[in-house]
């Protein structure tokens, strides 16, 4: 790479995003779906930090975006796991195909 490490880092984050998307498509267990979403959020964070470092080194906006994304991801994971555990108590299963009451 003649022009610095931005393109390899962007390719890594793209790969991670689509790995997360593959997991979101193939998994049927809610905890593994949550894990796939965490991978996708992390790939977005890598993008923000890489753009901040290599394209706009005089600013800090990308770092703040990734800090706020990490915070929101933590809140989201906590709420999602509370919902999953509640669902497990009422359905004895955390498979997305078993939770169909609100589907139609």
């Amino acid at each position: 790479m003649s022009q610095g490490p931005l393109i390899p880092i962007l390719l890594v984050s793209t790969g991670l995003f689509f790995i997360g998307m593959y997991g979101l498509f193939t998994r049927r267990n809610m905890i593994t779906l949550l894990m796939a979403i965490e991978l996708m959020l992390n790939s977005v964070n890598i993008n923000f930090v890489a753009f901040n470092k290599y394209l706009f080194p005089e600013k800090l906006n990308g770092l703040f975006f990734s800090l706020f994304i990490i915070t929101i991801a933590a809140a989201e994971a906590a709420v999602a796991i509370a919902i999953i555990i509640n669902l497990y108590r009422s359905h004895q299963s955390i498979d997305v195909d078993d939770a169909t009451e609100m589907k139609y």
Partner: protein
Amino acid sequence: MDISTIILYAIAACILGAGILAVTSTKIFRAAIYLLFSLVSIAALYFWMQVEFIAAIQIVVYVGGIVVLIIFSIFLTQQSGKEMAKPSVGKILASLGAALFGFLFTANIITHYSWGENPGRIFTVTVDQIGREMLSTTEHGYILPFEVISMLLLAAMIGCIVIALKRTEKTLDL
């Protein structure tokens, strides 16, 4: 190829390999551990990019918080050694096709775009700088998102307590 590029490729291989194992492993506990390795490798990538504060936050929040939470919920909801059902071959092929198409499409755009990268400028960020800008009320300060995020965390905390309490009330009614 210098040593720093080799380290970058090693970190990238760790991130992607652990990520692939995290979404394909049929044992859910192993998937959580592979997710842990992937997140630690991402923290290593932040260290490589010399944004130590984000790397520390990544380790504290993701590895110390979210993965532990996920492992807790795995133990609360199912037997960790149990094999999960494999998805059908048609679904695997369709998802793989969609993911590969998306990856190649985006990678094509990324490699052909001229990014205007300037390696001459040096990016240094200190925790002091981040803290001052986070709480500054001037034009480029982040005090408003900071306060909004704190309200969001409060709301999430109350929401989790309410969701977790509902079932115990019902069992008391029974």
